[in-house]
């Protein structure tokens, strides 16, 4: 098992991780500048996860939040387990072949979003009492006012907010990999996980269709949770 973890890491992995962390933070900051309602602070994490493996991705995510929290904005610190699991799940999905075409990437994004919502809920509840320092707390507050239990409210907020962010993140990461020269990709431990099947325009439309489908499913499930 330890060898499997080690298999994620070659020298290029170690050099990539700091760059991926910096990409996470820099893009996260650009998004704030553009005042877009997303985080997009895991693109680097997903890149590492897909090219190197789930453990490398997990490490990248965790370190991003720790360094961001210690050096720039303390509110990022407690969320490191979320970033850890984002990297881990993205890596696992890639291992199962879900990073080879647009629609598969969309599905990966959705699964990662779910994971993020699940892992972030206990953190939000235990450390912040449910109301965090992010804008999505207003949604939680509203849900609480409507009589929702704290756990339901927090999870529903996550479930609403995460899919758009993580599916976009996954697709941007895929677009980046598509644009990289083969030689660059080949130097990482798991280049076979991004051997693209397709990548054509039609694929992109199929993927967008899948995304819409997923969002509809999510909305349906959410209505179930909220109604109950």
């Amino acid at each position, binding site marked *: 098992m330890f060898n499997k973890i080690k298999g994620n890491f070659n020298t290029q992995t*170690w050099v990539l991780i700091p760059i991926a962390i910096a990409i996470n933070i820099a893009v996260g900051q650009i998004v704030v500048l553009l005042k877009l309602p997303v985080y997009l602070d895991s693109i680097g994490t997903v890149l590492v996860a897909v090219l190197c493996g789930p453990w490398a991705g997990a490490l990248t995510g965790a370190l991003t939040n720790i360094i961001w929290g210690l050096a720039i904005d303390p509110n990022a610190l407690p969320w490191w387990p979320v970033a850890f699991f984002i990297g881990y799940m993205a890596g696992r999905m890639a291992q199962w072949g879900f990073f080879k075409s647009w629609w598969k990437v969309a599905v990966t994004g959705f699964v990662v979003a779910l994971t993020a919502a699940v892992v972030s809920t206990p953190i939000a509840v235990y450390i912040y009492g449910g109301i965090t320092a992010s804008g999505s707390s207003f949604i939680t507050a509203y849900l609480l006012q409507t009589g929702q239990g704290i756990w339901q409210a927090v999870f529903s907020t996550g479930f609403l907010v995460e899919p758009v962010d993580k599916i976009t993140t996954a697709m941007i990461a895929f677009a*980046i990999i598509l644009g990289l020269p083969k030689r660059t990709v080949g*130097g990482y431990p798991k280049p076979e996980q991004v051997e693209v099947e397709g990548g054509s325009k039609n694929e992109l439309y199929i993927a967008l269709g899948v995304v819409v489908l997923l969002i509809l499913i999510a909305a349906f499930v959410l209505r179930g949770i909220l109604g109950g």
Partner: protein
Amino acid sequence: MPERLSFHIKRDSALHHLNPLTKLLLVLTLILTAFLAPFYWTPHILAVLFIPLLSILGKVGREYFSTAIRLILPAATFLFAMQAFFQPVGEEIIFEFYFLDITRESFLFAFSNAMRIVVMVSAFTIFLLTTHPSELMSDLTRRGLPGQFAYVIISTLQILPQMQAKAQTIISAQRSRGLETEGGFFKRAGALVPLIGPLVFGSLVEVEERAIAIEARGFTSKHVKTSLHEIPDTSTDKLLRWFLTALILASIGLRIWLS
């Protein structure tokens, strides 16, 4: 040129002379005590009394207070407000603002919660102010942290400001070519690609050469690594660590016993 991301300020203080691991343990003790100690006013006392004293002991008082006022206090206040208004606890309303209200219970809850966060962030801030990253990493490596981790952390700290500077350059360059970063949602969303693209691709192609460069300098050597600098670990350090560990155990113990 901001070539390194490091809060560290070189001073000659008791805290500066302590071993990095000791300081880490101190931070952990402060945080755990603030979160676990059963006495209600613990986080408040730590935040308002103990931590400022610590910053003075580390001769970084001024820097700490400026960070506290600029970053920590606003964040804590926001958190306090959110918690106080929206935590659905308690009945006795003590403050009303249109449709928002604060109950006595939610006020107390929010107050201690905010203080805990202040303790956590402040403890780390003082740690960072009095500890140089390469010192910390050298010490941890000596104690068994794999060299690759130390490499990743320091490398990230140095690359971050460069990446941010690069992002600034790209934003300016694209703006001067007519890219709009304000306005309607789709305009702003569309600006993402021309900004992220150059930033990411430029950085990713460096990876192969840098990997070769560090391999050429023995990065994957199987020898036991040595360290250029010697980080002192005195008996005061060791004693302090025992004391702090005892404090942590006491906090946990008290918590379990009293609950």
